C-alpha cells in the first residue's frame, strides 16, 4: 500500500512535492522537515517554514495525482499522526 489520497494524512509527508495555496505563504517545493505546527518546505533558493494550522496544501503523491489537504488535519507531531483515523475531510 503506497501513498494514496485516502491515507496521505497518516503517511510520510517528507519528500513529497507540495504547493501552498494560502495567500501569504504561496510557495512550492519539496517537504524537507516537519514539526508539530510547521512544515519546512525546500524551494530552489531557500527553506521556508509554513504553519500547518492556517494553510491548505496540494501534495503530489508518487503516482502523479495531486491531493489537496487542509493543514489543520496534519497538525500533530509526525509520529503521532498515524492513530487519528476518526478525522475526516480533505
Amino acid at each position, binding site marked *: *500500500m*503506497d501513498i494514496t489520497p485516502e*491515507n496521505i494524512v*497518516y*503517511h*510520510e509527508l*517528507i*519528500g513529497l512535492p507540495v504547493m501552498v495555496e494560502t495567500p501569504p505563504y504561496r510557495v512550492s517545493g519539496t517537504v*524537507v*522537515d*516537519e514539526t508539530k505546527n510547521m512544515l519546512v518546505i525546500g524551494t530552489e533558493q531557500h527553506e521556508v517554514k509554513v504553519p500547518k494550522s492556517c494553510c491548505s496544501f496540494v501534495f503530489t503523491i508518487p503516482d502523479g495525482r495531486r491531493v489537496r489537504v487542509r493543514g489543520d488535519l496534519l497538525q500533530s*507531531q*509526525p*509520529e*503521532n499522526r*498515524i*492513530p487519528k*483515523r476518526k478525522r475526516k475531510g480533505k
Partner: protein
Amino acid sequence: MKRRKQAAARKAFNVDMAGQRIERLFGLAERACRDRPDLADRYVDIARRISMRHRVSIPGGLKRHVCKECGGYMAPGVNARVRIDGRNVLITCLRCGGIKRYPYKSESREPTGQPAP
C-alpha cells in the same frame, strides 16, 4: 466482539503505516546523507520515534544504519566504516567513534586436535 475486531483492524493499519513510513524515511536519509547529514539524522530520529510510538521494529538491514551512540544515520563509505575481525562485523560511526558489533558464525574450521592413533 465487534469492537475488538475494529481495534485489531486499526492496529493492523497503524502497524502497516508505521512500517511504510520507516522504510520511506530511511530511503530519504540515504539520499540526503552526503549533502545534508543533519537532515539524514533528523529522518532517522523521526523513524525511531514512529517505531517506538507504534511498537514496530526497524527492519534489521536498516537498523545497522543507525548509530546507537549518537543516533545519527550511518552510511558505509560516507560516515561509517565496516570491518570484520573473524568473529564480528564491526561498524564504526566516524562522527562519534561508536562501534557496533554483529557476531557472525565463521565457516566450519579444520579440526585442530591431534589425529587419533
